[in-house]
């Protein structure tokens, strides 16, 4: 299903649509088919104008078994079309999905409102491939292609374009290609010949998309490429220390593929080694990064503190997932915010950024590396399962257009620098890399003398060092853009969000604005430090509501950082993104 979804969304993008996708799958690798917990889904939203989310409720649902129907029935529009495999809707399958009658549509109370397209997907696929010398398992796997053909028909996608696209995908597997094309075309023709009273969809080319060359990219891949771009811009080797964990592993896997870009990836023995090898690499002069999710960020806490103390550049990517503990590995949440901010012993400030779309993970990974290198500090980049796995259109950048990166190296002519030597004004420590005679020093986790760099427990010195490390992080505010406000210019209500909820919040606010409701949106991607104008923006509004996929962590942070005003909250912790509809409803209720 994931492959079919990717194929259909990429095909649509090539044909000029805006796309946004949301793969939603169980944490079991081969979860028992037909069970409610084993449903794997792929949601795609096509737009003839700019779209910001994978959409709320579906116009079309393709369902391969009753369980998939049951799990997704609440996420479809009133007059949606449901394509279902009649071969997989027998008594046994219905029972497996815990239906008690033989009419699941009636049981779900949707039989009057949806339009059903029953298709014997399994037997038609078998029929389609009967002349191919293929085992039954491979034949059944091609069912998805039949469904893809049907969807291409339903959305008026030219079949030639689909074939051309498939040919590219399977160019090294001619036999697989031949079979897939056969089934795809049969599916497409089957749709044509249905003569059903179904109105097919016409999603025109998007004209609002800025002109340029595009691809479709997932947030995890974009993150990996952002780090590569930064390493090239800084003229440094990229080192990634990483331990596999869902949903973050794709970043490691993508970087492991990129040996052509000189990336050094170490799959380490555990999360702690992932970050500590990266700290060693940073000490030795690489652009060092580590990536993780869920409990992995907790395991890395001590070492993040070490990087804070050693004042070394380091990027820590946290692709957040449902927690606490191992929680909901494949589901999305924004629940690591305060852990990223404060989850360490001692006064341990780090820079925190949060990407807001799959494609802009590239930008924020790049910026995380740029800030880490230019300010000699660890930077935590927060993304999550929703944008990490999801994909969106990405306007391809030109290397020359990316900002310069100037690591805070020891300046030429400096000698005898201590381990703690820093710029007196900005407090940024000089990155003092082994190999240079006369600059030998000992760095590490113990507190050091401000001047000599020698280990020190002296009272006032510790205060001075704590203050310097904080001042350095505060100084980063000069590198980040002001907070922008979107939506109504004269609104009394400000919606605040951060990170991956941007698409849903923006869609909700724009919809409300279209309905004449005055609402504005301020969305944060720079969390620590906050943009300079944060207080100025927030205090302007009569009402402020902070919407986030946690119990209120950013609201808590804002109460500390911009105190003296009321913050309303809208929170959801269900392992799922917001829907624009629920946001609209809630925001509307605040206007009354």
């Amino acid at each position: 299903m994931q492959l079919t979804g990717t194929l259909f969304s990429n095909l649509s993008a090539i044909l000029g649509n805006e796309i946004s996708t949301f793969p939603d799958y169980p944490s079991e690798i081969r979860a028992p088919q037909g069970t409610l917990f084993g449903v794997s889904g792929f949601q795609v939203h096509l737009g003839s104008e700019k779209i910001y989310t994978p959409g709320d409720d579906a116009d079309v649902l393709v369902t391969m078994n009753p369980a998939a129907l049951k799990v997704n029935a609440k996420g479809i529009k009133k007059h949606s079309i449901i394509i279902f495999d009649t071969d997989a809707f027998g008594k046994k399958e219905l029972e497996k999905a815990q239906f008690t009658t033989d009419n699941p549509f009636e049981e779900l109370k949707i039989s009057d409102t949806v339009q059903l397209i029953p298709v014997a997907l399994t037997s038609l696929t078998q029929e389609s491939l009967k002349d191919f010398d293929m085992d039954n398992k491979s034949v059944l796997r091609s069912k998805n292609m039949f469904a893809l053909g049907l969807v291409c028909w339903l959305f008026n996608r030219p079949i030639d374009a689909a074939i051309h696209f498939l040919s590219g995908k399977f160019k090294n597997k001619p036999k697989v290609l031949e079979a897939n094309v056969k089934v795809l075309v049969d599916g497409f023709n089957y749709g044509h010949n249905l003569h059903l009273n179904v109105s097919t969809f016409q999603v025109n080319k998007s004209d609002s998309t800025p002109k340029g060359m595009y691809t479709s990219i997932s947030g995890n891949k974009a993150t990996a490429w952002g780090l590569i771009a930064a390493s090239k811009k800084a003229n440094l080797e990229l080192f990634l220390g990483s331990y596999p964990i869902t949903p973050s592993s794709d970043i490691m896997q993508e970087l492991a593929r990129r040996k052509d870009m000189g990336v050094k990836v170490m799959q380490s023995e555990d999360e702690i080694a992932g970050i500590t090898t990266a700290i060693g690499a940073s000490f030795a002069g690489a652009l060092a990064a580590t990536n993780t999710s869920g409990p992995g960020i907790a395991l890395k806490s001590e070492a993040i503190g070490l990087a804070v103390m050693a004042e070394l550049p380091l990027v820590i990517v946290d692709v957040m997932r449902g927690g606490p503990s191992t929680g909901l590995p494949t589901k999305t949440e924004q629940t690591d915010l305060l852990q990223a901010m404060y989850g360490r012993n001692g006064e341990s400030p780090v820079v925190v950024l949060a990407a807001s779309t799959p494609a802009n993970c590239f930008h924020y990974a790049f910026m995380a590396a740029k800030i880490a290198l230019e300010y000699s500090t660890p930077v935590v980049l927060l993304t999550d399962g929703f944008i990490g796995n999801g994909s969106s259109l990405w306007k391809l950048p030109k290397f020359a257009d990316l900002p310069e990166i100037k690591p805070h190296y020891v300046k030429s002519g400096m000698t005898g620098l201590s381990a703690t030597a820093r710029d007196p004004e900005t407090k940024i420590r000089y990155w003092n890399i082994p190999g240079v005679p006369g600059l030998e020093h000992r760095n590490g986790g113990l507190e050091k003398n401000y001047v000599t760099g020698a280990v020190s427990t002296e009272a006032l010195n510790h205060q001075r060092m704590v203050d310097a490390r904080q001042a350095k992080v505060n100084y980063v505010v000069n590198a980040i853009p002001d907070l922008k406000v979107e939506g109504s210019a004269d609104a009394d209500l400000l919606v605040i969000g951060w990170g991956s909820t941007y698409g849903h919040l923006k869609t909700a606010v724009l919809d409300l604005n279209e309905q004449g409701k005055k609402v504005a949106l301020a969305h944060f991607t720079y969390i620590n430090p906050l943009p300079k104008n944060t207080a100025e923006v927030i205090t302007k509004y009569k009402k402020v509501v902070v919407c986030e996929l946690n119990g209120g962590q950013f609201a808590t942070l804002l109460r500390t950082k911009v105190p003296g005003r009321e913050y309303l909250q809208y929170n959801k912790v269900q392992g799922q993104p917001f829907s624009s509809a629920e946001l609209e409803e809630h925001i509307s209720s605040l206007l009354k």
Partner: protein
Amino acid sequence: MDTIEKTQYTVNDFKSDQLVRWCPGCGDYAILAAMQKVMADIGVAPEKTVVVSGIGCSSRLPYYVNSYGFHGIHGRGAAIATGVKVANPDLTVWQVTGDGDCLAIGGNHFIHSVRRNIDINVLIFNNQIYGLTKGQYSPTTLKGCITNSSPFGTIEEPFRPGELTMGARGTFFGRVLDVDMKSSHMTMLAATKHKGTSVVECLVNCVIFHDGAHKYLSEKTTREDRTIVLEHGKKMIFGKNRDKGLILEGLNLKVVTIGENGITENDILTHDAKTPDPTLHLKLILMSGPEYPVALGVIRDVEAETYNDALTKQIADVQAKSSVKTFDDLIDSVEQWEM
């Protein structure tokens, strides 16, 4: 010809301005001295040398060496050293660790750095006790030992560092004794010459919390009878009178006396540290008194590809074949369309 290189650096070039703050009489002083002598001998410049450590008494060592140094967090020295070496293979990297740091909290990193064969020199200061945290038992404390955290004696079997190194498919293992400067120097020198993870177990005395832990070996009058210093290619002969030796009897080692029962020097085993087969190396590692002498020196020294070399090579191979040379090439390589 060699003399030019050897005299390039002296021990003083590797002494930092920091006062060494171990307890008077601590065995760590001797290991530091041997290490600095080796550093001077191998002729690698201080700026090309990095000493990494974790936490514990021994892990303070980087402060005392004039080189680049990193004093990390408990147990993670192996991983930090790995990162340093992989990121910059031109550096000579030492990892200094103790029996607690290396084998308890850092056990995982230790076995994996050994398994990967990262080209670093690892000195494990084994005093069979936690010193810095004041006298708790460690993973190498002998069973039954009374310590601050085992008032009725420990009930755990200890690790034997050499055995663990073999289990992790180590390519180099040596053992030294703090009071034996000569074999310490020889062993550490061999460790620096070995490409890969060179594990050197340093038996050191903690005068405060575990005084005399290695007394059986270090006692001057009996040391030569209770230890054997192994060197590749040399006969396994030991003893004050150099009249004792090791032979194989069936699958087991046996101590014999030259000149007795018709045994001549020719019957004595010749040490082959270079054989990949770890069987005899493990037997030598496990020897203990009073039946056997405890093995010091270079027990295993096998050539194998290092992780850092393999990674560098793999990157070079991929780059030579790939048409993607620049970031713009990478961008051009994706499926893309105009909008």
